[in-house]
């Protein structure tokens, strides 16, 4: 395979499993992004068809394509009405899944302690309790774009990196909840990138316009490229903060094998969230993306399923203050 050859030239002794995990992760992310394009198009086609608007369908390439695909089907609606929504709230058949942040926003703004809507966040909440911030690393459409921004940053060789406190995102979450309660209006919807990506794609495909979110998102991308690496996901995202809190005692964790580790710091460099995998400090922010596992040339990082470790044990036997801080210098490429 060309891909394998290309990849193995960059990193030798690549653990095959870790690469497959990345292929799976990218596939899922791209699938979500593709769905965010497909759902508005399918709904637009479905509605135009309901209005018997043949001219409308034929006047756009995307609805024309959908028409060519489904026109001959016996039950075209089974396909065109199968899925609706975005990652903010998603509907497949009778199953409705909502972002826990949407539910938090809803409860805060409406001051309704219980509603049927709360059940729709059950699945993501359970998933986060068990696996941590997996939404962030595996499904979030904005994460994919932010990772691309990070790559652009590397290509351009931009070194400026203003760092913030990781606690900022928890502060944003708390401030947003307080604001929503006081105002009686939902505040996260406008600043939450995964929702913005879905909403702006819907507005663009359906009405040919963008909302304020598009500018906000572009500004974020620019900020991440030129000022602060992975600014949003590391420091600000209220959704990430919520998922991190939920995943604090998660069962799926990464673990360092102190015997195999050569302290090359490739894992720390690869971590998109700026964590310290080599020091074993994944914290609640880890989204189990597995980039560090892939980066490790010595198979020293692996997933472990089990209860969270007790106490702040540094598995490399180094002082608690951290290995990363004590070993300056970049690793050899």
């Amino acid at each position, binding site marked *: 395979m060309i891909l394998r050859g290309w990849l193995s030239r960059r990193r030798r002794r690549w653990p095959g499993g870790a690469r497959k995990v990345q292929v799976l992760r990218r596939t899922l992310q791209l699938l979500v992004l593709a769905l965010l394009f497909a759902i508005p198009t399918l709904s637009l086609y479905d509605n135009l068809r309901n209005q018997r608007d043949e001219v409308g369908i034929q006047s756009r390439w995307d609805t024309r394509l959908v028409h060519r695909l489904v026109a001959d089907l016996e039950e075209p609606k089974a396909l065109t009405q199968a899925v609706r929504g975005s990652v903010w709230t998603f509907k497949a058949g009778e199953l409705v899944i909502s972002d826990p942040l949407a539910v938090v926003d809803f409860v805060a703004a409406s001051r309704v302690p219980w509603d049927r809507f709360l059940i729709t966040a059950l699945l993501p909440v359970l998933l986060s309790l068990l696996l941590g911030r997996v939404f962030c690393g595996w499904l979030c459409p904005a994460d994919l774009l932010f990772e691309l921004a990070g790559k652009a940053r590397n290509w351009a060789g931009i070194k400026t990196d203003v760092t913030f406190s*990781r606690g900022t995102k928890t502060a944003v979450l708390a401030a947003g909840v307080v604001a929503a309660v006081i105002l009686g209006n939902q505040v996260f919807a*406008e600043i939450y990138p995964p929702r913005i990506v879905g909403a702006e794609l819907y507005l663009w495909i*359906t009405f040919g316009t963008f909302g304020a979110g598009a500018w906000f998102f572009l500004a974020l991308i620019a900020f991440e490229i030129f000022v602060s690496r992975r600014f949003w996901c590391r420091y*600000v995202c209220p959704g990430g903060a919520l998922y991190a809190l939920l995943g604090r005692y998660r069962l799926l964790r990464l673990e360092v094998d102190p015997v195999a580790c050569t302290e090359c710091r490739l894992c720390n460099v690869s971590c998109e969230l700026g964590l310290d995998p080599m020091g074993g400090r994944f914290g609640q922010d880890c989204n189990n993306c597995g980039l560090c596992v892939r980066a490790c040339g010595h198979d020293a990082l692996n997933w472990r399923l089990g209860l969270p470790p007790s106490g702040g044990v540094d598995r490399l036997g180094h002082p608690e203050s951290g290995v990363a801080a004590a070993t300056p210098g970049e690793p050899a490429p």
Partner: protein
Amino acid sequence: MDEEPRQPNRREALKSAAVVSALAAFTRLRLGEAESHVEAATAGGTRYLRPPGAIDEAEFVRRCIRCHKCGENCTNSCIRFVGPEGPPEARGTPYIVPREKACILCSKCNNGCPSGALRPVDPEHPRIWEAVDMGRAHLDENICHSFLGYICGICVRACPLAGKALRADLWEKPILDPDYCVGCGLCEQACVHMPQAIRVRPAARGVET
């Protein structure tokens, strides 16, 4: 626990505060002002014609999660969304401009609403005027063709509840019955006068006017 070690200091706290304030500024949260978003939404200044099944405006603003699903489900493509030019409390919420495209009461929007901002309505409801209250049509007799001697009656033909909400008097003069009018706006869309002689005013449910 296995938190990353961090030294909280004044500089970090200031930067965090700057980020939070920047976001608050972007969302135009008027925390300093006395009026809340809900009060602003129901103040009567800006009122939108909401899709059928919408609950009281104050509750609607609280409950709508801005997911755009009602718009995706709208088989008639008549639902629009308040854009960045709109007031902050209403941004991203659905509304209808009947003069451009009126609601056909298919109720796909409210049956797909996940958060209860739109309550499900049975589109086949035999007494749909009891289930739907979007607004009321109002007639300007000074410009209505039928009242000026040009026999028209197109609004009566367009009304889904013709004979109840809109009846035709002598020379096709429309007679409105607010008890039956659901505010779908099909009459306003159909009116041949420019500007329209019949208009829907959004329901003032839960709004003090």
